[in-house]
């Protein structure tokens, strides 16, 4: 009986496929008959531009890079192209495949309908978004905004109602300085360059419960940093979820007198109540969000009054659309925005457009140092301007349409995809897995 039923179902499904249709063989009885993309509902409302091509690039600055950039290029029948970024460390291949999975959602669609296409990709993927899909949608979303800005002849930050501050977007660099000498030099350079803020990682790896020696060492290192950089430079400390709530609550309390700008990810992000517990023990602002996807992923943290600062990343949260929505939620609760950016330059440049239009914007990260690196040189070679370098402590805004840059495929070809590399791993003394 079951077998007959299976055959009866299989027959017409196979016939559909043979005719080139996309109706899936309905083996479990739950598949929907799909409607063609861009159904008649929008007849007469179309912009006249249609998506004609989708390309995804893996870009490895070095052959063994553990974070190859994932760049998305969307082409239109009017010749306008858009660029976006969906870099996800350690998962480049998966994001590239996921971008390609959205091809049918996009080819032939109107690129100006960003919100509509975002909804389609997120909602109609059924499982909602994890980081791989969030990053893929982010790359596509940025490219669509780029196209829309170019077609409308406006920078994206103007489409979003900015800039709120014409001087540009305040940012911070990372630093590894830890000795008094290094910190004194860093302070000098910062003052010369007008840089007003730095972020450093908390040293070491942490067990579930920590010893007196380890806690004292961590607190002392942050004290040295404050003393070395002085009272007038903002300091953010990234715990990188290396600490459990039990350890983090001690540290956030003991470093309270240092008036840090924020402490980032004092514990991993899945358990909002666990982070709330840490936040209750200190007035030091708590920041988190770089691993969160879509505004849905941030809601509980914001509503429960856990965080002071939200750090969602334009390359994972859902692009410009996702970042703007998460920021809007945050703003309503009085939470400030300090978006994460530790990937490639396209996401970096895109996030500046959103920052420039946020009333609750605090500061923008860039994973670079106060002295330009080899990476900064490559970025400048790609774009023809020093992308993601600050002037007087701010990232300048360019008055060009879209995301404000041109990029050629040929310039990327010098850095071919070196394959997905696993992320770094760290282990404790007994060989057990450590958060890093």
């Amino acid at each position, binding site marked *: 009986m079951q077998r007959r039923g299976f055959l009866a179902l299989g027959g017409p499904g196979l016939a559909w496929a043979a005719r080139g249709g996309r109706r899936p063989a309905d083996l479990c009885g739950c598949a929907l008959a799909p409607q063609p993309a861009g159904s008649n509902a929008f007849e007469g409302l179309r912009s006249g531009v249609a998506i004609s091509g989708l390309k995804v690039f893996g870009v490895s600055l070095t052959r063994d890079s553990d974070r190859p950039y994932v760049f998305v290029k969307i082409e239109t029948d009017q010749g306008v192209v858009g660029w976006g970024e969906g870099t996800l460390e350690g998962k480049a291949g998966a994001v590239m495949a996921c971008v390609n999975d959205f091809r049918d959602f996009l080819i032939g669609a109107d690129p100006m309908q960003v919100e509509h296409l975002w909804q389609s990709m997120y909602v109609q993927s059924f499982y909602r978004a994890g980081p791989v899909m969030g990053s893929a949608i982010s790359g596509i979303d940025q490219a669509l905004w780029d196209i829309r800005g170019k077609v409308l002849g406006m920078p994206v930050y103007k489409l979003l109602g900015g800039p709120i501050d014409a001087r540009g977007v305040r940012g911070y660099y990372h630093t590894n300085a830890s000795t008094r000498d290094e910190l004194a030099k860093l302070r000098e350079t910062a003052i010369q360059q007008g840089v007003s803020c730095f972020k450093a990682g908390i040293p070491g790896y942490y*067990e*579930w*419960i*920590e*010893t*007196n*020696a380890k*806690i*004292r060492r961590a607190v002392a290192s942050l004290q040295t940093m404050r003393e070395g950089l002085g009272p007038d430079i903002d300091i953010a400390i990234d715990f990188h979820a290396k600490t*459990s*709530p*039990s350890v983090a*609550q*001690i540290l956030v*309390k*003991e470093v309270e007198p240092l008036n840090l700008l924020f402490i980032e990810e004092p*514990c*991993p992000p*899945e*358990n909002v*109540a*666990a982070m*709330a*517990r840490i936040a*209750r*023990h200190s007035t030091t602002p708590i920041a988190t969000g770089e691993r969160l996807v879509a505004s849905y992923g941030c809601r509980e943290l914001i509503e429960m009054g856990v965080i002071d600062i939200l750090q969602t990343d334009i390359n994972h949260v859902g692009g410009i659309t996702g970042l703007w929505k998460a920021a809007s939620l945050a703003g309503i609760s009085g939470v400030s925005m300090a978006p994460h950016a530790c990937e490639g330059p396209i996401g970096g440049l895109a996030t500046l457009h959103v920052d420039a239009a946020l009333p609750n914007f605090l500061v923008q990260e860039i994973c670079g140092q106060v002295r330009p690196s080899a990476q900064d040189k490559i970025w400048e070679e790609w774009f023809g301007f020093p992308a993601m370098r600050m002037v007087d402590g701010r990232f300048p805004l360019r008055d060009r349409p879209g995301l404000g840059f041109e990029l050629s495929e040929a310039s990327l070809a010098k850095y071919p995809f070196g394959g997905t590399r696993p992320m770094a791993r760290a282990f*404790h003394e*007994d*060989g*057990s*897995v450590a958060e890093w």
Partner: protein
Amino acid sequence: MSMVTAHRRARLESFLAAQVAVAVSAQTANLEIDELRLYPVREPVSGRAWTVVRVGTRSGLAGYGECAHASSDDLAAAQRFWLARPATSYASAPADSPLAGAIDMALLDIVGKVAKAPVYRLLGGPTRSKARAFASAEGVGAGVKRAIEAGYRAVGVRVPAPAARNQGQAYQVELRKLVETVRSQAADFVLEGEGLLTPGDAASVAAAIQSLHPLWFDEPTTIGSLETLRKIADESVAPLGFGRDIRHAGVFQDLLRAGSLDVARPDILHFGITGSRRIAALAETYYVAVAPRHEGGPIATAAALHLAASLPNFFIQHIPLPAAAEDRAMRAQLAGGDLERVKDGFASLPNGPGLGVTVNEAVLEKYHAA
């Protein structure tokens, strides 16, 4: 290794694996439980008592576990449930039996022996190569010294017994002095409250010692109202450990949800390996570590070490370290001297299939607690 050798070795290994698979399925057929026995034992000097449970199968395998006290009625009920059931069905154990923890250990011991694998491997480990350990010091001076000399780097020290409810300044001074004495002898310590303090006193003690960074404050008070415990957790950052009075896993869930628990301490004699693993899985979602309570004998120590090597969120294992040499000798004779040996603060994982313990039944008879 040449390609040819590698290829040959791979073939040989797959052949051996097939042999093992056959052996296992043949023996599984004879794994019905046909014996369940209790051996109540007692350390001669300290009087610390526990019950060894022996489970036998039709195929002639024996597995051992430990629980606290169990009555003859409890034994009869357990026999009604377990006799003729297969030893592999350890997950079906009724949680409310006082023998549950012991039977869980014994069945895993048997399953490990059948599979010729240590229990931690059955459970997907090892997640670590050794297990951090601490011992409770009986008396600050000599007790701490004994633990350090035995290879421990962390000790448990009991709070001074309060003279009455709602202690004041004098008690705080005494406590600080105690903690400083311990600090001068051993870097790391667990402050053991043993439920002796009122919630108010527990909160003041936690606040007073938080900057001295004990590993955690254990059993700061007895578990009563959850809101009372939450107040202690809210008033300081000293990590809190609970488990002594907990007989239902749901209590751990309540404490975690209230944000009042930093170290989950399921009693290994009560929850066994499997019950503790379930609690650890819950604690993991709160980024909270597990440090099982253990006031039993060396078989439970072995079980706890296998548990530690099966968990991602194990932190430290309490191992009873009796003050009297005679008691320590009894434990060593019962299950072998290496099992409870600690070096540089860590215990080694037991070797051998199952729990990796060869139980000396003559010792069980000799120290029978009538």
